[in-house]
């Protein structure tokens, strides 16, 4: 990455149709029509996102599995070919260096998709810790296009442009699928809480983006009957927040452990050795000093990052992500609080500018999982 702003494959489309902002060194669309209509398109039907700013690396070699078991917290040995898992990389103190989705393609070919802001940091950390393993790490971020197609109509839409049965790829599974005549790798994963796919096209540099544009246009055409919307980073953020998913830099950082973030399922202590194991094990025994919670406003007001949280006049935590929920039409937030401070009742105060307004602790996702999200009935 140089000093100039990086662009993604669909840059021309975004400039023509969207409002651009700078994010993690990239020129990205924040919205096209607006955050609310884009958000609701994904919850109710379908949306498409260009997420080419994400980091993408391929990890191969005879000891790729051993290496990944050492450097990540989840158990890579239980990850079957053509499957994906959510995981973290931690530092020695158990603090999260990044969170990401790791998939295995053919046996021994691993593919990691991580945060744009951590592209450089991750690649350096992986390389530095790989010296004692027979492994190759290749950063392909700029040579693979990446879209997300999300929403209850995602499968129906993509099925129109492939002859293969997409029903065979279940949630957190992946595979090579010919889509709109192009060889693509698709993974039934996402960052919205909805059913949907992330679509990758290999050998597609940003400077020669024809294949990416062809796929993008074919998906938009196929989704037209479902009123597909191109969606920007604004809706991506509100969707992931409603779903209770963490954003690195806001809700996760190097001073926060997976146990504190309540994503402890990505830490597998049965593994013999991994970076951060000792610190995390110690924390598991001694207990955590802060924990991530969801907050729904009881009074009017929109919680934002850094807003202080108090109870009975005592400061107990702070907001890390907050927004107006387009679906619930009220303020929602993620926050970290002292674990003991919410045992008896669930009501807290959030300091929004000069006012203390009431909020209640809520489980994730914020929406009713029977009506919205991939588990909807």
């Amino acid at each position, binding site marked *: 990455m140089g000093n100039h702003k990086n662009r993604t494959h669909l840059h021309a489309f975004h400039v023509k149709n969207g*409002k651009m902002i700078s994010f993690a060194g990239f020129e990205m669309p924040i919205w096209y029509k607006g*955050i*609310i209509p884009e958000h609701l398109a994904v919850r109710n039907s379908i949306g498409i996102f260009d997420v080419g700013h994400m980091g993408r690396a391929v990890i191969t070699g005879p000891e790729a599995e051993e290496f990944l078991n050492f450097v990540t917290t989840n158990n890579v040995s239980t990850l079957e070919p053509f499957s994906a898992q959510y995981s973290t990389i931690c530092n020695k103190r158990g603090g999260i260096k990044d969170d990401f989705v790791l998939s295995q393609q053919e046996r021994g070919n691993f593919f990691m998709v991580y945060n744009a802001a951590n592209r450089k940091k991750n690649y350096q950390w992986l390389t530095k810790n790989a010296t004692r393993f027979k492994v190759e790490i290749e950063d392909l971020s700029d040579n693979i296009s990446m879209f997300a197609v999300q929403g209850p109509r995602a499968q129906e839409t993509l099925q129109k442009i492939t002859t293969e049965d997409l029903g065979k790829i279940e949630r957190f599974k992946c595979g090579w699928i010919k889509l709109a005549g192009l060889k693509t790798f698709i993974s039934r994963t996402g960052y919205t809480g909805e059913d949907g796919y992330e679509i990758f096209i290999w050998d597609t540099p940003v400077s020669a983006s024809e294949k990416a544009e062809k796929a993008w246009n074919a998906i938009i055409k196929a989704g037209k009957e479902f009123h597909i919307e191109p969606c920007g980073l*604004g809706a991506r953020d509100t969707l992931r927040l409603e779903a209770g998913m963490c954003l690195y830099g806001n809700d996760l950082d190097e001073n926060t452990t997976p146990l504190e973030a309540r994503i402890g399922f990505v830490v597998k202590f049965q593994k013999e050795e991994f970076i951060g194991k000792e610190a995390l094990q110690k924390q598991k025994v001694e207990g955590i000093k802060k924990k991530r919670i969801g907050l729904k406003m009881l009074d*009017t007001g929109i919680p*934002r990052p850094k807003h202080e949280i108090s109870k009975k006049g005592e400061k107990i935590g702070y907001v890390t992500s907050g927004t107006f929920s387009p679906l619930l039409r009220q303020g929602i937030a993620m926050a970290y609080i002292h674990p003991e401070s919410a045992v008896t009742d669930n009501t807290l105060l959030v300091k929004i500018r000069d006012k203390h307004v009431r909020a209640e602790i809520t489980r994730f996702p914020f929406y009713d999982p029977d009506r919205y999200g991939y588990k909807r009935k």
Partner: protein
Amino acid sequence: MVKVKDAEVPEGLIYSKDFEWVKAEGAKVRIGITDYAQKQLREIVYVELPAEGDTITQNEPYGTVESVKAVSDLVAPLSGTIEQVNTEVQDKPELLNEDPYNKGWLLVIAPSNMEEQKNLMDHPQAVEWHKGLSED
């Protein structure tokens, strides 16, 4: 209706560089945010205003508007005492997007210093000033 690029700049109003309009109504003035401002903010979902009887001071924040993504201060175009507050926009913040110069008004104030109007832009000045604003 005068339009600069995409933003409406109606005649008969005076304007501040903090994206507010001022309309003289006898001895009082009505204030609100401009079309350019609401277009920049996009979907306004929350408006916080002071109460009747409170005073506001020129160039100082008196309230807040929030879009899904961002929080912006409302900056007073004139000093004065608040005579009326538009409670409807507090219940329906989208009125600021739909009708910023009419239903989306914010306050009626009794100005305390008419001299302050010299610091505002008349319509021709506001049109020129809008020409220099970025569309992003």
